[in-house]
């Protein structure tokens, strides 16, 4: 029997949405959406094996070959630059990376700009291109609090609707990059499981085209 294609999906709403795209493309495994403590879900008939992992870890599973393919946000790919093939923009989980701050924020360019973020590499690269001197404050959550409490001047974070920002008297004022979910593949798995990966890729591409 052919080896199963190992697929890492991000836990949470995005992962469930993406799983439905895989299922609609003919790679279903209904058990994967059941509320159970199981970690790995197989459907040998469809040739797939799914597992749910923390969204920021998907790229690690794929890069190191524990998963053949996976779905990961463009923000994670930009931040960690894992050595994987980025095969398809799934056009779902659409949001953007943006710089935001207090509504009355004014950038005093004579000062070092303090930027709170979960994405230090993206932040460094963004401001390097602008030749702006910055002080990166790496946080792991509740980034919006930083400018409110004076910990930073601005934040660089994921913005979906901007509702949380506006409710806290903050606003996004520069888009750094658009973000959406991407199908990624391990470089070696691509060579040895090319046919299986191609089938998934074309099935998902049809799903993406259908939504257009």
């Amino acid at each position, binding site marked *: 029997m052919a080896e199963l294609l190992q697929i890492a999906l991000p836990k949470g709403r995005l992962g469930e949405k993406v799983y439905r795209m895989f299922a609609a493309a003919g790679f279903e495994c209904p058990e994967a959406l059941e509320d159970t403590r199981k970690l790995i879900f197989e459907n040998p008939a469809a040739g797939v094996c799914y597992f749910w992992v923390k969204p920021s870890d998907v790229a690690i599973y794929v*890069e190191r*070959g524990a998963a053949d393919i996976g779905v990961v946000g463009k923000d994670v790919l930009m931040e960690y630059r894992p*050595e994987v093939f*980025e095969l398809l923009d799934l056009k779902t989980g659409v949001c953007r990376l943006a710089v935001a701050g207090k509504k009355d924020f004014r950038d005093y360019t004579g000062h070092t700009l303090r930027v709170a973020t979960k994405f230090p590499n993206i932040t460094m690269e963004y401001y390097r291109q602008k030749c702006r001197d910055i002080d990166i404050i790496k946080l792991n959550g509740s980034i919006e609090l930083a400018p409110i409490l004076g910990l930073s001047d601005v934040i660089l974070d994921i913005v979906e609707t901007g509702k949380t920002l506006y409710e806290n008297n903050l606003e996004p004022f520069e888009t750094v990059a658009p973000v959406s979910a991407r199908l990624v*593949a391990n*470089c*070696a798995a691509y*060579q*040895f499981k090319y046919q299986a990966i191609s089938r998934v890729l074309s099935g998902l591409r049809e799903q993406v085209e259908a939504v257009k």
Partner: protein
Amino acid sequence: MESDNAIRRGEEGILSRLRELYRMYGYACFKMSKFEEYDLYGQNKEFLVSDSVITFTDTNGKLMALKPDVTLSIVKNTVDVPGLVQRLYYNENVYRISDRTHQYKEILQAGLECIGDLGAYNLCEVLRLAARSLAVIAEESVLTVSHLGVISALTADLKPGADRMALLRCIQGKNPHGVRELCTQYGVPEGEAGLLVALTSAYGEAETVLPALRAAVPADLPQAASLTAALGELEATVALCGGIPGVRVCVDLSLTGDMNYYNGLIFRGYVKGIPASVLSGGQYDRLMAKMGKRSRAVGFAVYLDLLERLEKEGDFDVDVLLISEPDTPASLVADRVEALVEQGLRVAVQSSVPERLRYRRVETLTGKEGG
């Protein structure tokens, strides 16, 4: 007892078989010092896999580096001899930051360089040796091959200020949406961007992929001649590299390298069971020119540190666990150990059974038994 295969697959077994292979094709061993003057790397940072180098000051005040790369040292010591080809192979440790762990690592690397007045045969020879090296390492492998002339022709006229490296990253990452987006930003005409995506998305065995790629190049395209020449050279080289058992040779034009150094043929090798490429190589005439040499050059490296994942642990650590009691005479233990080793069995002497040791059988020696 361990199987022959397991032994052959071990790092040392692979190294000795690679050495043997390279010698058979007339390659001579190049042994070098662990250190090199830092300047060599400072001037050629982009050629290195990682630009972080471990440095120290020598007793005479010179800034030295632990070698992060072997090719630069070989090229530095090469002398141009018109009409001749130098063939060198090496097994050396290099020191650099691992892409995966972001920590410095000592990496055992084997490889070869073919330098001089190279012709079509030399390119075939090196590519064939790359394929044969993969066959030494594993029973199933893939050698992906590309020609930088294709990407070079289609990305020659980017807008001033365009980030060529970003475009190459998208191409190498098989990211068609990213390639299209950047081509639009960098002023690449729509037709050429489409062709770039089509050519770099193709993947498969040469005999099926290359004719389709050649047919995809419009005859009236300004770059048609250079694209056809690159694809032709690739086809001629790859045609002579097939037929090695267990090695699939695939064309994948998304393979790239820094075009300030590399040109022409470029390739990468994968073996089943290892999640990253274990072999990487190509033609680097531009590096030669940059270092003031007229010779052409092609070579590759095999990353042996990755191969430990191929080694299968045997079912047992030893064949016989010999329990010797405190009063057992040492001569008795020694005689029994020698007798078992003579039979080709692996023996471990202990005074009690270790918790995690895996053994086929236990023998107990006591002073009273007298053997």
